[in-house]
């Protein structure tokens, strides 16, 4: 991307214009997320900067919205629900998804595209349609308004991510390694645990994180399938935005951003580690 020494004036102008455009787009991407952080410390119940905040007067800032969040039993219950639902749906989707990915990565797999297409469909079908279908069906099997119902629904929505991520890990998988192990007299199960598992673990964990965040973030399905007993954080935020927008929502948002930063770095580290293990050098 560096500008060559022999660049013409026109090229120079274009180069800097291009960089400016890129900076503006990056700003568009990131400012909405950054702007939340200071606003969540607003001492006033508004969604905008007060004059005190702009003059960096400590009076303009307070942690009252964080206190409101930590002292409100509704929010606490929402956090608990979100965690319970996300953890269980992650367990289900990771176990089913990883098994399926192992099967799909076999060269001999018949009807691969069709089956893969079906397994990934929950990611593509508009959420409102999934939610509506599940609403009627779960009502019939008496799972409406239960944790189990929401967990199963979220697991279904999350498995495509696990399948995709683990399959991707397995694409770079060198099958001669397992064959070599077999040649050297290792039993299939021993090969699986000694060779396959360590190699796919990073993929499985990042698949798990994808699954976790899918459930943790999901609001449409839980709005349809859940009763007030399954109120999750996104649900509480959704109704909060529609009713009374208090900066408590921004405080929650800030906490969630911190959480996603942690997730983001974990996934990135895992991805690089996985590539190293499989001998793919990053470009």
């Amino acid at each position, binding site marked *: 991307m560096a500008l060559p020494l022999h660049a013409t004036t026109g090229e120079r102008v274009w180069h800097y214009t291009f*960089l400016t*455009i890129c900076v503006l*787009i*990056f700003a568009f*991407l*990131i*400012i909405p*997320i950054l*702007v*939340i952080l200071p*606003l969540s410390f607003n001492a006033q119940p508004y*969604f*905008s900067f007060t004059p005190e905040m702009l003059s960096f007067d400590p009076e303009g800032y307070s942690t009252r919205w964080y206190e409101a969040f930590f002292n409100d039993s509704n929010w606490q219950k929402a956090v608990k629900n979100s965690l319970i639902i996300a953890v269980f749906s992650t367990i289900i989707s990771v176990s*089913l998804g990883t*098994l*399926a990915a*192992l*099967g*799909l990565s*076999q060269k*001999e*797999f018949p009807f691969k*595209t069709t*089956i*893969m297409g*079906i*397994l990934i469909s*929950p990611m*593509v*079908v*508009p*959420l*409102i*349609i*999934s939610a*509506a*279908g*599940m609403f009627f*069906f779960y009502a019939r099997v008496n799972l409406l308004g239960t944790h189990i119902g929401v967990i199963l629904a979220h*697991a*279904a929505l999350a498995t495509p*991510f696990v399948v*995709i991520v683990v*399959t991707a890990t397995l694409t770079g998988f060198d099958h001669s390694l397992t064959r070599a192990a077999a040649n050297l007299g290792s039993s299939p199960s021993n090969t699986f645990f000694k060779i396959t598992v360590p190699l796919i673990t990073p993929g499985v964990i990042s698949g798990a994180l*994808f699954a976790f965040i899918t459930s*943790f973030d999901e609001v*449409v399905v839980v709005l349809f399938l859940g009763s007030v007993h399954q109120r999750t954080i*996104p649900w509480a*935020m*959704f109704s909060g*935005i529609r009713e009374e927008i208090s900066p408590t*929502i921004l405080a929650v*948002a800030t906490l*969630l*951003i911190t959480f*996603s930063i942690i997730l*983001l770095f974990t*996934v990135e580290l895992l991805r690089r580690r996985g590539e190293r293990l499989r001998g793919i050098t*990053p*470009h």
Partner: protein
Amino acid sequence: MASNTEALKTADGISLKVSLQRSLRRKKRNALLLVAPLFLFILVTFLFPIFDMLIRGVDNKITQEILPTTVVALAKWDPASGQLPDEDIFKAFTVDGQVAAKAKTISRLGKRLNYEKSGFSSLFRKTGRQLKKFDPEKMTTSYKENLISIDKKWGKVETGSLIHRESGRYTKSYYLTAFDLTQNSEGNIEWKDADSSIYIDLFKRTLWLSCLITFLTILFGYPIAYLLATLKAKTSNLLMILVLLPFWTSLLVRTSAWIALLQKEGVINDTLVAIGIIGDESRLSMIHNSTGTLIAMTHILLPFMILPLFSVMKTINPSYVRAARSMGATGFTAFRRVYFPNTIAGIGAGGILVFILSIGFYITPALVGGVDGTMISNFIAYHISTSLNWGLAAALGAILLSLVLVLYILYDKLVGIDNMKLG
């Protein structure tokens, strides 16, 4: 040569060919067994429920359930004759109606028929209330006259013909409504009048907004992907965080951020007023309309465009452009003739992905879209949870779903589903 291969045997004396086939079959079976649990899980918890819902788009058992004898009697009547149904049909209706009024189900049928013609809901409620008190012993007139005395609509052929039309086990009326069509009293299909036709416009608007969002994500995503693909790995990885952070941040967090930015007394308007670009009186309305939907959704979907574009651009060998330049092409020509054609696949992949995601969006338009920024999903949700017209919701859902499936197949042809990557 051929006889030689046949002669090859494994240690336990089976021909190698058979043995290989057997092991291949075993491998196939094992692979299928590994996939089976997830396949069944998706089938039961996901595909079957959706299929089951789509059936509701044609299901019409309610009329037969609530008016069992009337439906049988009505089958003999020909609405095209222009004559009112016979006395025995009015009697059957009175009997059915009394049972339904006592079971408190009659207003449900009124609600159902009201989807076809406005006025049926109040007609059935009113009739139900009267029939509950009705005593055939004390009746002095005929059943027909009695019903007409409750509401003169019972004296009209159209009333009977609508019930006649919607007395079957299945109906096409929800799909007709979803296309802004209706059946007139002769049973001919015609367009609805302009005041009540909304869905075609709504589909058009949804597609238009999705196109616009896809275009904007390409416009904003392309330079960023290009920059990231051409920078040194270290810088590029660092800048990648700016793309991935929004990607990993909750949808609702980003939507609330846009509310804080876009509202009348929000950050953007405040800034514009403070630096004097606009007056305090002429603050921009950027929320509760399509502008809000457009901005917020472009932001939310931009990473889905950048990531596939980036992975395609990564694979383009920089020496191609250098070769073009060395042969005398200007920077622009080299880009246009050599680099850009190589990225079309990436644009296609990202474009379809963004388009698929945006035509099904619900949450963001519901929160920032107002009236003209709402999409088809919002109407499906409205019909499921507010108007309770589940048949229409199913019909609209089926249309949306088929749109998405066509795009999904296109995506598969273009990129291959098994090549889908995340992050």
